[in-house]
């Protein structure tokens, strides 16, 4: 990581959005920043939790991760956003040392991976995309058994299990078998399991995929509680809303390439920069010529016209009197960025 990038990270670390993390005092963050800004040797442990530099991975002749570079400051929530097959899980596996990159270097918690992955894993908790709890065990047994994999004695595990159960809101399910839990409860248990070794860094691979809205909100809330405790989180998702809500910064992936990186709002401002008018109910191609002069950019997707208009009233005036049209004016969101970057059906 260059000195320049590091300053970027530091600047961001002290940015106003951090204030919402009440439990981590700003003072502490600042002092972190200063130590590393002064020292000429990168003091990676205190500021940079994860660093990928030029990482490439292919399976057969298919390139799955392509010259990927990003870095995650400790205490931040970093999103990896991409469609199915973009390489999100592969990145997570490489980070854990469960597969080796073909090229590039990975540093996690100050330790080179995969060379010293076992050491790095001491400080990592994992919430995998596919549930791998022990179905025949109870909630408590799952935690106990997992603690043993970290060399924790039964007594050590039993000392932390009550707080983990409380975190996962599973106090009353401690002796229920996993197969009796709902999908949301299972995901909460997986989160609790990931915390048993008190990790600094938590890797979450699509934590809310397949959950109902209640469970999803619970997971989001729990995730924020972790950030408030000063944990670093790497979150993969293909839900734009999730990324927008939770991530301090994110990286948009397409076919394993980093096509954009930054804070959610910064990305929206940079790539869209105005409100979006969705127009449907008419022939989009016919409408296109009408609104074009008043728009910064127009896209057509299916039967919907997306009109990026600095002055939406003009567009509205233009379309007045046309029957059957429906207009929706809304602030731009990450989905617009994503679709812009990866291309909608047709772009004008």
């Amino acid at each position, binding site marked *: 990581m260059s000195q320049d990038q590091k300053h970027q990270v530091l600047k961001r670390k002290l940015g106003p959005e951090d204030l919402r993390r009440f439990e981590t005092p700003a003072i502490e963050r600042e002092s972190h920043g200063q130590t590393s800004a002064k020292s000429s040797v990168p003091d990676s442990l205190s500021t940079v939790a994860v660093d990928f530099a030029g990482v490439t991975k292919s399976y057969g002749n298919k390139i799955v991760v392509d010259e990927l570079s990003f870095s995650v400051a400790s205490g931040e929530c970093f999103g990896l956003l991409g469609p199915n097959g973009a390489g999100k899980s592969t990145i997570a596996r490489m980070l854990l040392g469960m597969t080796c990159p073909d090229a590039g270097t990975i540093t996690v918690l100050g330790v080179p991976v995969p060379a010293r992955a076992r050491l790095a894993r001491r400080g990592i908790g994992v919430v*995998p995309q596919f549930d791998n709890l022990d179905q025949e065990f109870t909630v408590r047994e799952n935690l106990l058994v997992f603690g043993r994999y970290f*060399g924790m004695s039964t007594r050590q595990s039993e000392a932390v299990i009550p707080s983990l159960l409380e975190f996962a809101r599973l106090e009353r399910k401690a002796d229920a078998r996993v197969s009796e839990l709902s999908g949301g409860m299972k995901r909460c248990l997986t989160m609790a399991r990931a915390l048993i070794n008190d990790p600094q860094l938590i890797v979450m691979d699509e934590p809310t995929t397949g959950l109902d809205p209640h469970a999803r909100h619970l997971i989001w809330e729990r995730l924020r509680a972790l950030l408030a405790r000063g944990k670093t989180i790497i979150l993969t998702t293909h839900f734009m809303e999730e990324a927008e809500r939770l991530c301090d910064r994110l990286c948009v992936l397409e076919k394993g390439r980093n096509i954009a990186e930054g804070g959610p709002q910064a990305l929206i401002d940079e790539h869209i920069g105005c409100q979006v008018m969705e127009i449907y109910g008419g022939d989009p191609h016919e409408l296109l010529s009408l609104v074009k002069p008043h728009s910064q950019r127009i896209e057509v997707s299916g039967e919907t016209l997306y009109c990026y208009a600095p002055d939406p009233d003009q567009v509205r005036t233009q379309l007045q009197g046309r029957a059957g049209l429906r207009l929706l004016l809304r602030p731009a969101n990450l989905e617009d960025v994503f679709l812009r970057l990866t291309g909608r059906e047709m772009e004008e």
Partner: protein
Amino acid sequence: MIEGFAAALPANAWNWVAVWRRNYLAWKKVALVSLLGNLADPMIYLFGLGTGLGIMVGRVDGASYIAFLAAGMVAVSAMTASTLETLYAAFARMHSQRTWEAMLYTHVTLGDIVLGELAWAATKAFMAGTAITIVTATLGYAAWPSVLYALPIIALTGCVFASLAMIVTALSPSYDYFVFYQTLVLTPMLFLSGAVFPLNQLPGAFQQIARCMPLSHAIDLIRPVMLDRPISGIALHVGVLGLYALLPFFLSMALLRRRLMR
């Protein structure tokens, strides 16, 4: 590549215990059913063949046929128990249940997992073999107290067949392939290893093949101690079994690394 393999080796001498204990906890919940299941098959063979064939065969090598067969069945039950555990149960934990994947997020390495699984399969083999040993000794078909020497050999036999089965587990795309190993490797071995009839009745070429098979070495050790007879070539038998336990362990680990960590 070499470096990667080294990282996958067991991390230390005790990490595997956590894996073993996970399997033990799961087994405890179904212990009775599992024990009965493991025992029924060899018992039926022992008494079915032993009494039925025993009438026609008479005495074999100076012992009653059922006493002769008992030693074979002890070894075979160890072989079957550890093979089935490693083929089906360990494969499920690796493949469909993703239990190994969860273990790999922790301090446990792939080598620790394989070692823990082998130790667990050997434990099940030990339980099955020991149970049959106790039954046959109680009925007077095996000699006290020399039969006790059979116990470590049963455990070693369990290790050997777990290790061999781990190669099959590492290579199989699905459960369907296990039956080939069972019918094309284990069943012939059963007949070529002196489990049900003495080897010296076979043509010379088959006797040569038998000498290469781990089961015949296990039986050559177990039968004398159960019949309280002197054993010849202990070092050779133990050495061969040791190699059969060790080499497949490293081979299966390399194969599993290629399969799981690519």
